[in-house]
C-alpha cells in the first residue's frame, strides 16, 4: 500500500479549474517527482496534499487514514512536512535556532514567547544532528540571513526535517540555484532518500530525472504522463529529436 495517496482530486478557483481528477500515489522510501510547466498546477497540488487548500472533491490519505480537509498543522503533526517555494526562515535566528523552533518538543513548549525557545541540551543535540544531515553542522551559529543562498535552501530542508516527518514534500528546491548549487542539492537529496520518503516538485526535468523513482507530469490541472524516469525520457523525444520531428 502506498504511504500517501491522492484520489480523484478536483480543485477550482473561480472559473479556473486547477486540478481535475488528479490521482497520485507515493511509495514509502521512494523519491517521487511531480513536474510540469510553470503555472500548470504543481504548487496548488502540493497545497491540497498538505492541507493548505481543501479539495472540492477527492480524497487524500496518509498511512491508510483519510486526512482530507484536516488543518495543515494537524496534517503536519501526523508526520507530513513540507518546504515552500518561497523561503520561510527566521532571518535573524541562527541556523541552529531555526531548527530548534521547528523541533516538535520545542514547539509544544507553551507559555513562553516563541522567540525565546528554552532549549535543553537534548534538543540542541538533536538540532545539531538535523543540521549535520544537510551538511550545515559548521554553520550552527550563523544567522540565517548571513548564509549563502544554497545553504539557506539546505536550511529550509533541515527545518522540514526537524519535525521528524515520515514524508517530506519539497516545493521547487532548485529555485534560484545555479549549476553548482543544484549538484550539491542533488547530492543532499541522494543522502536523505535513505532516511525519508520524499516528494519533489520541479520545473526542471533534468534534476528530477536523475533523482526520482517515479514521476508524474502535471499540465492543465491533470496528470498528463506518469512513469519511471527511463520510461518518461523515452517519451521526451523533443530534447533528443528537436521539435516537430518524429524519431
Amino acid at each position, binding site marked *: 500500500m502506498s504511504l500517501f495517496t491522492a484520489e480523484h482530486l478536483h480543485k477550482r478557483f473561480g*472559473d*479556473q479549474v486547477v486540478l481535475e481528477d488528479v490521482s497520485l500515489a507515493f511509495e514509502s522510501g521512494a523519491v517521487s517527482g511531480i513536474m510540469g510547466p510553470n503555472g500548470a498546477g504543481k504548487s496548488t497540488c502540493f497545497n491540497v496534499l498538505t492541507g493548505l487548500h481543501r479539495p472540492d472533491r477527492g480524497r487524500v490519505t496518509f498511512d491508510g487514514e483519510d486526512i482530507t480537509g484536516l488543518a495543515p498543522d494537524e496534517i503536519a503533526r501526523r508526520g507530513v512536512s513540507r518546504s515552500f517555494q518561497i523561503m520561510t526562515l527566521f532571518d535573524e535566528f541562527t541556523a541552529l535556532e531555526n531548527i530548534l523552533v521547528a523541533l516538535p518538543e520545542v514547539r509544544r513548549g507553551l507559555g513562553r514567547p516563541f522567540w525565546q525557545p528554552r532549549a535543553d541540551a537534548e534538543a540542541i543535540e538533536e538540532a545539531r544532528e538535523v543540521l549535520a544531515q544537510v551538511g550545515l553542522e559548521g554553520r550552527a551559529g550563523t544567522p540565517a540571513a548571513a548564509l549563502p543562498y544554497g545553504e539557506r535552501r539546505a536550511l529550509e530542508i533541515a527545518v522540514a526535517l526537524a519535525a521528524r516527518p515520515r514524508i517530506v514534500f519539497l516545493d521547487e528546491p532548485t529555485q534560484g540555484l545555479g549549476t553548482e548549487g543544484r549538484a550539491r542539492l542533488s547530492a543532499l537529496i541522494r543522502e536523505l532518500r535513505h532516511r525519508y520518503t520524499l516528494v519533489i516538485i520541479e520545473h526542471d526535468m533534468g534534476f528530477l530525472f536523475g533523482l526520482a523513482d517515479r514521476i508524474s*507530469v502535471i*499540465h492543465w490541472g491533470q496528470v*498528463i504522463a506518469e512513469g519511471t524516469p527511463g520510461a518518461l525520457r523515452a517519451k*521526451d523525444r523533443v530534447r533528443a529529436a*528537436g*521539435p516537430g*520531428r518524429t524519431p
Partner: protein
Amino acid sequence: MTGPPILDVRGLTKVYRRGWLSPQETFRLEAEFTIADPGVVGVLGPNGSGKTTLFELITGSNRPSAGQVLCCGQDVHRVKYRERDRLAIHYHQSYQVRRFAKRLPSACLQRARSDFPMVHLFDEPQFSTQDGYIGFMLDFFRALRARGRLVILCVHPNEAFQVRILREICEGYIFVKDGRLRRAPSFEALLEDPAAVAYLGALAKA
C-alpha cells in the same frame, strides 16, 4: 464510426453590435462544419479573427446569436451549465476555464449525456522549446485521440517550430479570418488559400 458526429456546428452565428439606439455591427462570426471522428484539428488565424469566440461558442461559455453546436448529438447550449464540461472543455494556456453565459435557470436545461468531455479545445497552449514539455503535451493529445476524443488546437504561430508541431500532430485545419472559417484537410491544402499563406508569411515554408 456510427452514431452522431463528435462535433456538429450548424448555422452558428455570433454578432456583436455597438450602440443602443442604432446598433452598428462590429463583428460577425459564422461557422458551419462537421467533424465526425476523433482526431486532432489545428485552428489558425490572425488575432481578432474569431478563434476564441468560436471556442467559447463550442464550450457554451458564450451564447450564439443563432445556430447550434451539437456535441455527440447533444446541443451544448441546452445542457446544464455545470455539466457542459462533460461535452467540451476549454483549456486556456496552462489551466482550464469554466465560465458560462447563463440565461435560463439550470433546472430548465438538460443533463449531459456524456460522463467525460468529448471535445478538448486548447487555446494557445504554451509550447516552449526551453523546458522540454512539448513531447508530453503532444503525447497527451494523441492519448486523448486514442480514447475517441476530438482535440482542437488553437495556435498563433510565431516561430517555425510551432508550425512543425502543428504539421506533426494535426490531421486537419480550420483557418479563421474576419469571422469566416475555411477547412483544409492537410497543411498543403491550407497553403492553397492565399489568405492563409499571407497570414503564415515566411512560416508557410517551415
